């Protein structure tokens, strides 16, 4: 095939591709797109802000100490994060449907206009790609499904910025269209066609059904309706398990009767058995486990205050604490409690849940539980607590 023939057949193929005029559905309109797009933008903004908050909450050494009150704050923000992403799925699909013909618009002829068109198309490609990526990966993560080899947390975080950035660029480009679609004169409906109102109502219904059935399992009362939620709230003490003792490879070490907890500060060391911990003053706190995957569950935990353990090695109040698990490797094998968290009267090394001895999967012999922080930091199978200078 000669170069010319190849170019010719390519040209004829492109000529036969549909044009925006081939899509004749009168249901598509800038008024519809702007309304769905605005709410989609709200969902992405909420998911972005709660996502950044979650990232800050997981930093081992935050620049500004995050508050430990209200105890339910992280539970709500992370639940909202997943709910906003879930609601965004039907909104994104309807939004893309409403502008799908634009994909086939031919580039304008003048050089400057052609260049601007290409730049805008590129920004939309980045937006569609990063936004869809965020929804797909976030959804799979909430069901602990990882069919990829990239790091979920850091990649999802990086692309959250890309999605938010390209969304703002898109809003800047389309602002005149958005403005006239919201504020302009009402367009007369086309007889016989499905109206904008019908499509909008169906879209809001889709978002509502999606959130209630898939992402509301942390809301008491709604939980029964969450037929498609990855967790219904079952588990020892009615608290689900994120990672089992077997998966963490700690079954033997955690069940060992010779287990001891090491508490240290500088050159001062103390070794405590579980019986030693049980004989110390016990504190009970009703606190949620709030997983980054969006689920959360309240438990009544009893154990030893972190401040009591710090007193054993004469640590000053306000010191930060490094917590290590029997688990070797993995992001959840160690965590750091900033000074304000360690000093909190509800920050405890729990020995029981709902009056029962802590189950192996919940972190027996002892685990961290403290208010308003991601579940990933509530380290299980704790065998070492080091007070930092």
């Amino acid at each position, binding site marked *: 095939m000669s170069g010319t023939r190849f170019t010719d057949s390519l040209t004829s193929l492109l000529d036969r591709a549909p044009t925006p005029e081939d899509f004749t559905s009168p249901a598509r309109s800038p008024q519809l797109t702007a309304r769905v797009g605005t709410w989609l933008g709200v969902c992405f903004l909420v998911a972005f802000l709660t996502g950044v908050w979650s990232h800050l909450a997981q930093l081992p050494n935050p620049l500004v100490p995050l508050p430990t009150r209200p105890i339910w704050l992280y539970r709500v923000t992370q639940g909202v994060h997943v709910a906003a992403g879930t609601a965004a799925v039907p909104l994104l699909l309807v939004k893309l449907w409403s502008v799908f013909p634009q994909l086939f618009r031919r580039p304008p002829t003048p050089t400057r206009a052609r260049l601007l068109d290409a730049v805008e198309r590129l920004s939309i490609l980045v937006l569609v790609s990063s936004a869809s990526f965020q929804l797909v990966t976030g959804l799979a993560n909430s069901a602990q499904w990882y069919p990829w080899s990239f790091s979920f947390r850091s*990649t999802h975080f990086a692309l959250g910025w890309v999605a938010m950035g390209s969304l703002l660029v898109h809003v800047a480009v389309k602002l005149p269209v958005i403005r006239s679609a919201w504020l302009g004169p009402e367009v007369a409906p086309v007889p016989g066609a499905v109206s904008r109102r019908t499509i909008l109502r169906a879209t809001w219904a889709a978002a509502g059904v999606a959130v209630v059935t898939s992402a509301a399992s942390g809301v008491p009362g709604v939980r029964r309706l969450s037929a498609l939620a990855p967790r219904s709230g079952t588990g020892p003490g009615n608290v689900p398990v994120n990672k089992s003792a077997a998966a963490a490879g700690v079954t033997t070490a955690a069940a060992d009767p010779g287990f001891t907890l090491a508490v240290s500060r500088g050159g001062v060391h103390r070794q405590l058995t579980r019986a030693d911990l049980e004989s110390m003053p016990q504190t009970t706190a009703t606190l949620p486990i709030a997983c980054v995957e969006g689920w959360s569950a309240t438990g009544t935990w009893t154990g030893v205050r972190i401040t009591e353990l710090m007193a054993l090695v004469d640590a000053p109040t306000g010191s930060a604490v490094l917590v290590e698990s029997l688990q070797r490797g993995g992001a959840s094998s160690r965590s750091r409690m900033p000074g304000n968290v360690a000093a909190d009267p509800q920050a405890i090394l729990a020995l029981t849940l709902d009056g029962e001895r802590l189950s192996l999967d919940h972190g027996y012999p002892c685990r961290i539980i403290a208010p308003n922080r991601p579940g990933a930091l509530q380290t299980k199978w704790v065998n070492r607590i080091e007070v930092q200078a």
Partner: protein
Amino acid sequence: MTGTLRGTRTVIGAVGLVLGLYGVVRLLGLGWGNLLATVPWLAGVVVVHDGLLAPVVVLVGVAAARVLPTWGRRAALLVLVVLGPLTLLAVPVLGRFGAKADNPTLLDRPYAAGWAAVVAVVLVAAAAVAVHDRREGAPRG
């Protein structure tokens, strides 16, 4: 007014550009291996939507407009818009891809039955809409 609009657009666009570039820098900072694993997914979601999902939905819309009587259109739209995205959302739990033998608290519901129940509720609601629209006679849109 035009000047204010232009100023607003410039500010929003500039902020967007900075946030987006920060994200790209973060992504590149995760290393080449991570990037090479990410790019097929970034491309894949667009290819699957634009090349497969969207054309199928357009064809379904064209077919529905030809076949369905006017009174059945609102009901059909409700079914497509609610159940289409919901079914996509349910793929991870219906497939139980993340299930772990040592963790019965994960994916602990009968998801096929749950999905069927939601489908049934939406179909009943859609049927009510269709009956209503047929009784009304005039195409309400």
